[in-house]
């Protein structure tokens, strides 16, 4: 057996928390990477996957330090090197592809200068030669206009292109190891496919080894040879990709996998629902930003949207970033006044601006935002956050209000003692539950959920969805569920609206989305969702021309 390219032994990385406490965030991690092998580091946020990946470059984020163990990369002992020696490895022996290429490109320099910077720093080759090599890489990564794209500034190319350009930036120095740090997480599914394909073919052609950091098992299944499952800074399970997917040993891996299982959604819709007016009816709604001139907003976002929601049913809204799905929720809620069309709640017309709606109309429709971190006031304890709607809508005070706060916390399965805490003292999933309880406090009929599980880890998000379903049964709620994630929508909705560039493409029954999709865009979107099958990407018949035409890229 050949010597592994990378050997990590007993790695311990410590961090200093905000309160000055020292904790070990990586505890005794051992693994090897063979030359040409792609190893995935899988885990939820805070599991230490990025920290381990960066330590292979001898880099720790501020506040962290390598406190023990050894990292060997080829013939170099990274842990024993000084900073200057480590710098000489970066870009030539080991290279990095960041999570958000949009943030990792310097906005004030042309792309070409940044892509070939590695060759300049390490004196690898003359500039002209480096540019030729960069153009070859651009071509290999299937970038448009490979000859001239380097002359642009980062803000002049799309997110998916930037992500591929960052791969070119990593590969220009012919490293032996490439670190992919969640490189497709910030991309839309249809873009993700192009990027994954480009990565796969380039890695295969070059024979470089890779570390692929991700929280998404389905994405990892397409590119990795071996998977390392991490939790709380420790390795839970290691194995070849197929083995991990088919015969997981560890319970955490099983949890991760089961989050992918389709959960059949049993609708709570009853026959009598048809008798009452629809909980939400939208006809010809158009909304946009900027000043309204001659009945049209300057920047139109939504164009002529119509749909209907029966009481007790859930409506999913899917689409890629910029398709206008969040704007739709905001226009229905009246945060962004529509400039055309009508919105009816249980047969009653709602005025465009929420300022003109009655308190009861406001109470009936509540919105829950994606990021609980920014939606909850960080300096108010949970009790006052939940008390506000109770006082505003129901005039509750004193002991009755406190009792209701405890009830609300109980509904979202949080202990009563939590009401004395500040949002910052809660975990991400707990914060999102409080965020949801705040909407429940108004006792609404319809809750607009704007990507409420997108920022949560897979397992936490699955629990959140279960909670939503239970509450629906108990309280007879209806949800309008906005998400970019099809499986989430599938798990909780009766019907699904597919949106594209501010237009409603088609409405589909959630249970048979892929079978009943007629419109090419819906089909493209549905087929782009990665599957756990490692052969999925290779077998996918995907027409890049269609994707281009649909997305206007």
């Amino acid at each position, binding site marked *: 057996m050949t010597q592994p390219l990378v050997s990590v032994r007993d790695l311990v990385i410590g961090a200093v928390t905000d309160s000055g406490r020292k904790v070990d965030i990586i505890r005794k991690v051992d693994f090897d990477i063979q030359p040409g092998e792609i190893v995935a580091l899988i885990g939820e946020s805070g599991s230490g996957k990025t920290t381990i990946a*960066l330590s292979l470059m001898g880099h720790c984020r501020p506040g962290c330090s390598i406190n023990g163990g050894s990292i060997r990369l080829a013939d170099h002992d990274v842990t024993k090197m000084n900073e200057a020696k480590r710098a000489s490895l970066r870009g030539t022996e080991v290279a990095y592809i960041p999570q958000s290429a949009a943030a990792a490109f*310097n906005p004030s320099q042309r792309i070409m200068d940044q892509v070939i910077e590695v060759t300049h*720093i390490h004196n690898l080759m003359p500039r002209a030669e480096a540019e030729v090599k960069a153009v070859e890489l651009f071509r290999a990564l299937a970038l448009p206009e490979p000859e001239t794209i380097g002359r642009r500034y980062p803000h002049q190319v799309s997110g998916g292109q930037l992500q591929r350009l960052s791969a070119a930036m990593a590969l220009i120095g012919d490293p032996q190891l490439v670190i992919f740090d969640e490189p497709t997480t910030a991309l839309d599914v249809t873009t993700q496919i192009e990027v994954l394909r480009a990565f796969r073919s380039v890695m295969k052609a070059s024979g470089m080894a890779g570390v692929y950091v991700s929280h998404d098992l389905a994405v990892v299944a397409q590119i990795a040879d071996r998977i390392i499952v991490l939790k709380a800074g420790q390795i839970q399970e290691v194995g070849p990709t197929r083995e991990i997917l088919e015969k997981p040993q560890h319970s955490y891996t099983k949890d991760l996998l089961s989050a992918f299982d389709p959960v059949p959604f049993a609708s709570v819709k009853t026959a009598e629902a048809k008798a009452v007016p629809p909980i939400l009816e939208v006809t010809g709604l158009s909304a946009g930003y900027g000043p309204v001139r001659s009945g049209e907003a300057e920047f139109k976002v939504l164009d002529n949207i119509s749909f209907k929601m029966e009481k007790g049913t859930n409506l999913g809204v899917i689409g890629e970033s910029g398709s206008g799905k969040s704007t739709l929720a905001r226009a229905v809620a009246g945060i962004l006044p529509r400039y055309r069309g009508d919105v009816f709640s249980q047969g009653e017309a709602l005025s465009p601006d929420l300022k003109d709606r009655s308190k009861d109309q406001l109470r009936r429709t509540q919105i829950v935002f994606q990021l609980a971190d920014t939606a909850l006031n960080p300096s108010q304890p949970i009790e006052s956050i939940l008390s506000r709607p109770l006082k505003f809508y129901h005039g509750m005070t004193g002991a009755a209000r406190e009792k209701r706060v405890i009830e609300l916390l109980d509904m979202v399965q949080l202990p009563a003692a939590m009401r004395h805490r500040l949002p910052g003292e809660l975990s991400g999933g707990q914060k999102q539950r409080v965020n949801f309880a705040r909407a429940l406090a108004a006792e609404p009929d319809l809750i607009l959920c704007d990507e409420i599980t997108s920022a949560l880890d897979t397992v936490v998000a699955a629990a959140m969805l279960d909670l939503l379903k239970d509450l629906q049964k108990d309280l007879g709620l209806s949800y309008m569920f906005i998400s970019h994630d099809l499986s989430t929508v599938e798990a909780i909705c009766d019907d699904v609206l597919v949106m594209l560039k501010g237009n409603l493409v088609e409405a589909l029954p959630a249970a048979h989305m892929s079978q009943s999709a007629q419109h090419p865009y819906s089909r493209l979107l549905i087929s782009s969702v990665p599957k756990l099958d490692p052969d999925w990407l290779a077998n996918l018949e995907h027409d890049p021309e269609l994707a281009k035409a649909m997305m206007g890229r």
Partner: protein
Amino acid sequence: MHRSLQTWLLVAQRLGVALITLVIVSFAVFFATELLPGDVAEILLGQAATPEAVAGLREAMGLNEPAISRFLSWLSGLATGDMGRSYVNDIEVADLLGRRLSNSLRLAVVVTVICVPFALTCGIAAAMWKGSILDRLVSILTISVISIPEFMVATLAVLVFAVWLSWLPALSYGADASNFGALLKAYAMPVITLTCVVSAQMIRMTRAAVIETINTPYVEMALLKGASRRRMVLRHALPNALGPIANAVALSLSYLVGGVIIVETVFNYPGVAKLMVDAVATRDLPLIQSCAMVFCVSYLSLITLADVVATLSNPRLRK
């Protein structure tokens, strides 16, 4: 570097805003001075003046006309370069101001030439080696200098360099300025004092702006490409921190024209700030107004310049 039409439009827009601001400011300056207590005619004629004589003088000086018409004629005068005549000395305000302004500007230019490169170097170096001994030393020194009032710095400088050591003349103006060495000596103390005061702010703001850009993902990316600390800061962080740095520099420098009254007084330096204080004492309205306008113009032009630099350095506006 190519700039799009849009960039130049933005710059033109910014200049237009500056011009409008100037008109509003002139309005404020004129009517604020109108509110000053006391009457020029009374002060000029002294306590023994008869009411008839005061009334006659008011009439002769045009003080009885409505304020708005005096404002308009003053503004149109300003626009054509006519600042009016001083009530007290009966000299053209432009002449009075011109001499003093050249004094003030000379001091300001000398301080700027010394202080801007010094402050930028210190600020960037402190940011580059954040947390090092150098950084801490710079931070302690700048905070101390900001905390000590400038009259204290000035007085101490006089005490040490002029009285105890007798190295430098205590008064700058009228001192021997026959050769370069003597000139250097004459300016040394006001320049040292002002450099201390002005550069401290500049260093702190530059350091903060550079550190903020150092914490961005693209600078971390540069680190992961194997760039040295120097390259990270100078090539990647600094160009993106130019906007805030230009603003910090402009704010500090604007102080050199109008805010140096204490320094001018301590070193008996005949600059514009001192002229204005004297004018207030004698209710010399045209002079006060002109001085105030000079301060406003210099302040506005510095801030406008900083904004234009920030606009031009914004990569998103490049083609």
